[in-house]
């Protein structure tokens, strides 16, 4: 291998790492539009078959990915859409390790405030506001599939419980473990 070829190979690996990161950002950014439009097809395309969904005992909702897709089509979820459900994602933190990745992110579930007093914002009209119904820490375990990065497992916990802190602490613990090895 010539020096030029070696340098090209280095460029290729770095470009691949960048593409991975951007694809994963996009995957996470794609979750709210998929959920808020109840697109089962979209939700299905983001996951591997048999993907695991763990929201703990505290939160209502699906316990597996297959159930999530079924739930999106159910009348109850359509009612949530009619209420104005909005998933609002924070900036995800991404750790890539070969063909696996872990993403840690915060997610708000918002809806119009049913009890809100009208407040006026100059040049923007009057609003009874939106409320944050849920606030969660999320851990997404991703795998590189032949079609691209896919979700193998998602764990979410409400921010007002101790388990959310464990998800967040995981970021530092993995980093420490990587440094030591």
């Amino acid at each position, binding site marked *: 291998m010539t020096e*030029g070829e070696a340098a090209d190979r280095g460029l290729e690996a770095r470009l691949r790492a960048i593409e991975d990161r951007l694809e994963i950002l996009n995957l996470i950014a794609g979750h709210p539009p998929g959920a808020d439009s109840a697109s089962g097809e979209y939700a299905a395309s983001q996951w591997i078959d048999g993907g695991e969904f763990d929201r703990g005992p505290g939160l209502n909702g699906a316990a597996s990915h297959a159930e999530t897709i079924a739930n999106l089509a159910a009348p109850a979820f359509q009612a949530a859409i009619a209420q104005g459900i909005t998933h609002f994602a924070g900036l995800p933190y991404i750790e890539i390790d070969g063909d696996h990745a872990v993403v840690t992110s915060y997610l708000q579930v918002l809806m119009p405030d049913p009890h809100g007093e009208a407040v006026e914002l100059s040049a923007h009209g009057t609003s009874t506001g939106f409320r944050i119904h849920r606030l969660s820490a999320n851990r997404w375990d991703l795998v590189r599939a032949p079609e691209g990065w896919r979700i193998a497992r998602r764990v979410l916990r409400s921010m007002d419980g101790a388990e959310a802190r464990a998800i967040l*602490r995981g970021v530092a613990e993995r980093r420490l473990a990587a440094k030591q090895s």
Partner: protein
Amino acid sequence: MPVKKSARNSLERRLRAVEDRLEILDLIASHPPATDSALRSRAASFWRDDGVVDMGEGPKSYKAMMAILDSPGFEDAQAQGICHFSGLPQIELDGDKAVATSYIQILAADPKGEPFSLSAHGTSKGFRVLRLSANRWELERTRQGWRIKSRTWRGMDSKAARTLLRGTIERRKAKRKAA
């Protein structure tokens, strides 16, 4: 086919700029999980040793802010569900320096909230936005990677926040003039 050397230099520069940008995104994204789980050593690792924070009362060492993470008050804040929620940062790269401008919400569970229900999602007393700020992060490339040199924080209900935000436009104008 091997790439020509001149083309490779240009590719190298462009690739480096993309890598810098992603590393800075990473730095901004990793700040909330470290803070919210009170991992002082992790939070401290983002900073240059002489890094400063300015929360509106003038600059002081970032270490003073880190001490909050160890206080009993912060433990209570965690039990209340404290969450730093970051918007998408705007990043200006300039060689070995960079400025990131971002919005951050500080949220917590609302103990007095009137319960409200969302179909298929149960009932909640809700979470509230307790603070909403504009942030300017001045970053520097060090041997260990990008590190924070200073962070300026201004509440969105202050004039100073607007000045901070206008900085993104003013720096852009100045850069254009210089070029």
